């Protein structure tokens, strides 16, 4: 019995009837661990995001005057501090990648035609790339103390001109 060569996966054609409806025939399997890593990433990023997002919401919406406090100065004030810069950057990346991978799963699940699936994913990845680049640039190239029309905007954190 041990002499039998075992091929894997079992070929459908050789065993049983070969009446498998075409839409169920499995396309070639995937190589590598991408799906596993994606799965793992969803969970790890999820845990970190809980901290990041809840912190973000608390500071922005609940502390002090809540949403009324949000204006240019508020944002500028936060990003003057490298702590918040890193915080928001991490949140941006993790949330975008987490969300993108989530939406990728959903597209895989529901897009029926291969072509549709491909297009939707292209759009998704393009949007994600654009947003991540944009967001990163904003955080890093942001100047909390712009000089608008020669006038220094008010802000306690700005160096005196």
């Amino acid at each position, binding site marked *: *019995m041990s002499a*039998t060569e*075992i091929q894997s996966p*079992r070929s459908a054609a*050789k*065993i*049983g*009837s070969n*009446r498998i409806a075409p839409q169920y025939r499995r396309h070639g399997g995937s190589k590598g661990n991408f799906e596993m890593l994606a799965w793992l990433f969803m969970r790890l990023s999820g845990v970190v995001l809980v901290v990041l997002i809840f912190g973000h919401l608390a500071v922005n919406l609940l502390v002090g005057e809540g949403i009324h406090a949000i204006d240019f100065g508020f944002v500028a004030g936060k990003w003057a501090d490298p702590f918040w810069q890193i915080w928001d950057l991490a949140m941006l990346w993790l949330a975008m990648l987490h969300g993108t991978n989530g939406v990728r799963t959903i597209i895989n699940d529901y897009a029926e035609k291969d072509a549709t699936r491909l297009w939707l994913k292209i759009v998704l990845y393009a949007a994600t790339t654009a947003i991540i680049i944009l967001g990163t640039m904003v955080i890093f190239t942001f100047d909390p103390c712009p000089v608008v029309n020669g006038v220094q905007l008010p802000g306690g954190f700005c160096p005196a001109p």
Partner: protein
Amino acid sequence: MQVHKYDVVIVGAGGAGMRAAIESGQRAKTAVLTKLYPTRSHTGAAQGGMCAALANVEEDNWEWHTFDTIKGGDYLVDQDAAEVMAKEAIDAVLDLEKMGLPFNRTPEGRIDQRRFGGHTRDHGKAPVRRACYAADRTGHMILQTLYQNCVKHNVEFYNEYYVLDLLTVEEDAVREDGTPYKQKRVAGVVSYDLASGELHVFQAKSVVFASGGAGKVFKTTSNAHTLTGDGMGIAFRRGIPLEDMEFFQFHPTGLAGLGILLSEAARGEGAILRNSEGERFMERYAPTIKDLAPRDIVARSMANEVREGRGCGPNKDYVLLDLTHLEPAHIDAKLPDITEFARTYLGVEPYTEPVPVFPTAHYAMGGIPTNISAEVLQDNDTVVPGLYAAGEVACVSVHGSNRLGTNSLLDINVFGKRAGIAAAEYAKTADFVDLPVDPEAYTLDLLNHVRTSDGTEKVAAIRKELQDTMDANMQVFRTADTLNQVLTDIASFEERYQRISVQDKGKRFNLDLLEAVELGFLLELAKVMTVAALHREESRGGHFREDFPERDDEKFMKHSMAYKDEHAPADGSAEAIAGIRLATKPVVFTRYEPMVRKY
């Protein structure tokens, strides 16, 4: 019509069929035709165990096992076959273990064993632990393991292909004593593809029948709806005799009213039968091994209790199986499924309440006669080259007039394996036999008759009446009167069967049509059983004649052989009217002389 060509064609994918397929598939081009997906076969319903004298927990040997088998079968067992089975049992179990079957284990990690009815140490001294088991799912594990190994070996299955006819040719041959005779030789089988409604002819050098039992001739039965005796019916119609059909086993503990089986393993683990007075009545009937007496004895004792007014329930028509003194943890470990059946189907909690039970039609001891190489006999001493049978459909006969629990799972493995090897070896030496002209004509006729008939009789109604009369008159107790009643009833059913019609006229998945065909087999087999029972004017094993309550070795220590014979002499006898010719076949004795059967 499509024609396929295979060296070996196996009919049925239960335990016997798949065990054969694993052997034959590695030796010859093999196809398995089965009317059910393999894992739906009724082997999966078997619960208690499969016995072999492994002696893993107690001293035991295969000779004691042989003796128990012979005594259990009330000496109508062919002793050469019983020896083969008991001896090969050990390898049969080990084979399964090596294929991956997850047996329960002893603390040392060996296969665990439990007690079962009629299995004793040293020729009846005391019960012995001989049944290897996997909780109360032994049959399930066997069926799954065999299917898994079929997948491993790339066995080709044709699922939901109903075999409806056996193709043979007849040629001149000479017996050993020099007399000429017409020898049948296998050419193939005709099958009906359920999905498309098309007929497929399979030309084959060897054919193995492993199509299981015929429990659906009875109303209260542990058997599946699909166990309609097709294999026996097909063979019988094609001139092959059926052996010992009067012996049908009634299992003592079916859920009352439903027939769903509660394994003997329950009693093996210590459960006790009680009547309405709470009495452990088996102490009266089998003082030594009590509740673990063989099934025929226990079933009759139960029926007797009920007859004498000590039954339980509103109609006083069942007795009780009491597990309440067992530890719930023990019950969960050893009998999880059957206790769930009691909960699901009767709403009884076996931890705290006894379970209502009554005998249920369980196992056909008789069937297509074979020798120990699983070759099918055409008459007492010649075989049909290329035709094999194994499992419940066959009669080797290792079970004689009463099968011991756990011997059937053993039977299917031992003789399934033998059949598979023999069929493949034969196919290597033999040539294909030319198919008869119009091979599918008979089957087409059969189907067209049913499909196009515009009668008014309903299949289900006839079947129900058949099952009712069989339950009432052909069950645990029989007399000439009740048996004649059955024959009268069947005659009228057969007449009505000519006028049945089916509502579904389509081709796809026409189960309506197939139920009608199956009813044809049931009627035929019920008739054979009853005629044979009428002829056996004695009581032995599963066959109990109230008008002849003693065993009569003088006249009846022989197998009965029923042949389909439309041209039997019109002598007015029951069998002639039924179109059956009855003959006998001697029992093979090797070492054990018949004794009085006492437990």
